[in-house]
């Protein structure tokens, strides 16, 4: 599904930094388990109607290494890499210092990206972004007009003084 028009839109979401493909990629792959924060199937996210994702379609990777984990390790890399297998979309999230929160945020971002991928312009995400962009342009236009009017008014005042 081709959605080229989206790229010039200001990104609503915190885009993940381009990964430098650091050591984490060499780490073991760990599949997610039922314990993961749930995505409602056919779920609503902030009143947007988005395609639901099931845990079975997702692959998750953590930078926890091969060690014993748990108490025996004190690693601070709480980055989560989440892949939607059917579409191949990957999201990397290191927005917080909590693994659990990063997992939730990653799922939210992934859900929006997957929805955009399959629905393109029909996606609520697309529509919301477009509406926001319009609002922004409208605000700019009004501000510009306001400045023009002020300028004009000042010029007229100068003329009156003469």
């Amino acid at each position, binding site marked *: 599904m081709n959605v080229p028009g989206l790229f010039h839109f200001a990104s609503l979401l*915190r885009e*993940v*930094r381009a990964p430098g493909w*650091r050591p984490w990629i060499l780490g*073991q792959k*760990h*599949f*997610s*388990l039922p*314990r*993961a924060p749930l995505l409602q199937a056919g779920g609503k996210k902030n009143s947007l109607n988005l395609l639901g994702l099931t845990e079975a379609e997702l692959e*998750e990777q*953590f930078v*926890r290494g091969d060690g*014993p*984990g*748990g*108490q*025996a*390790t*004190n*690693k*601070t*890399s*709480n980055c989560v890499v989440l892949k939607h297998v059917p579409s191949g979309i990957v999201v990397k*999230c*290191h*927005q*917080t*210092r*909590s*693994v*659990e*929160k990063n*997992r939730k945020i990653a799922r939210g971002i992934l859900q929006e990206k997957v929805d955009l991928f399959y629905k393109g312009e029909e996606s609520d995400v697309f529509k919301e972004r477009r509406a926001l962009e319009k609002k922004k342009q409208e605000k700019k236009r009004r501000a510009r007009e306001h400045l023009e009017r002020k300028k004009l008014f000042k010029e007229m005042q100068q003329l009156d003084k003469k």
Partner: protein
Amino acid sequence: MRCLTHTLLRRLSCLSPQCVPGRWSQILSPKQSSLRQSCSTRPGVVTATDVVNYWQKVFETNGIPEAQESSEYIVSFVLGAKTFQSLSSKSLRTPLTAAQQEQIQQLSNKRLERMPVQYVLGEWDFRDLTLKMRPPVFIPRPETEDLVSLVVEEESLMHKKNSGPCFPVSAPHPVILEIGCGSGAIALSLLHKLPQSRVIAMDKEEAAVDLTRENAHRLQLQERIHVLHQDVSYGSAKQLLLWGPVDFIVSNPPYVFHEDMASLDAEILRYEDLDALDGGDDGMRVIKTILALAPSLLKDSGSVFLEVDPRHPDMVKDWLQAHPNLLLVLCAVHKDFCGKPRFLHIQKQSR
């Protein structure tokens, strides 16, 4: 294998080649001028990205694990953010003030001594909460975040079963006992997620009791938690029954096998309370103590949730079968986010 005391373990960790005592780190730690020189953009101007790259190299040179992550967390912290990824591209390009650079230097020097990042920053996040961290109180591990989810889910199931006209909805529920509260991560997360709950939290270390109380106050949860300075191995059940029998017992008890203690990272051996980790020869010492005490503390159908070593589930199952008088049954084993068996759900059978 001879039993190594914890002081000996700590001293041994200092002998490893990666340990560089104060003098070395002074020689290798940079002066501010060389930092400015190494920045390729504008002379005399140092951005967040420059500083992260700089300290990452210093950490790598000094054999400090997680060089990039450590550097990022420290710089983000000084800039008022939680993670480097959460900083705006604007803040990444903004020049750092001299005061900020000085603060980063001070924090990084601590990291050069292998101090865990959580102690360097004096705080860390656990699920939705930001908690104060202070050595030697045990730093909560990310796996433990799922332990909280398990209790919350079970409460939701139990609540559905029990709600009805005869159930006093206004009474505090659930009542939870946490054994070994450390910084208060589990106790306070549960209070936060379960607004009607009450927690009795205990720890044998005074530093942990103090830190849990401090975090409870910071989060305004002090009204719903009682923090006791008590050792589960020596106390009596009576002192723990302030609110009667409890719905849940939760614990992340020391579960490391004693023979594995010596191979822990310097960050852990040098700074954390090793008693919070060492579970004895089979890692089961405190687990067994908790399970032996559980029946006198739990309501019928009450549950014990434990975090354990991946080798423990079978060991615990066998031990419970060998102690049928406890009327405790292992009803589920849950995996952590790395796929390792990590959490036990044990239930008390009604008579």
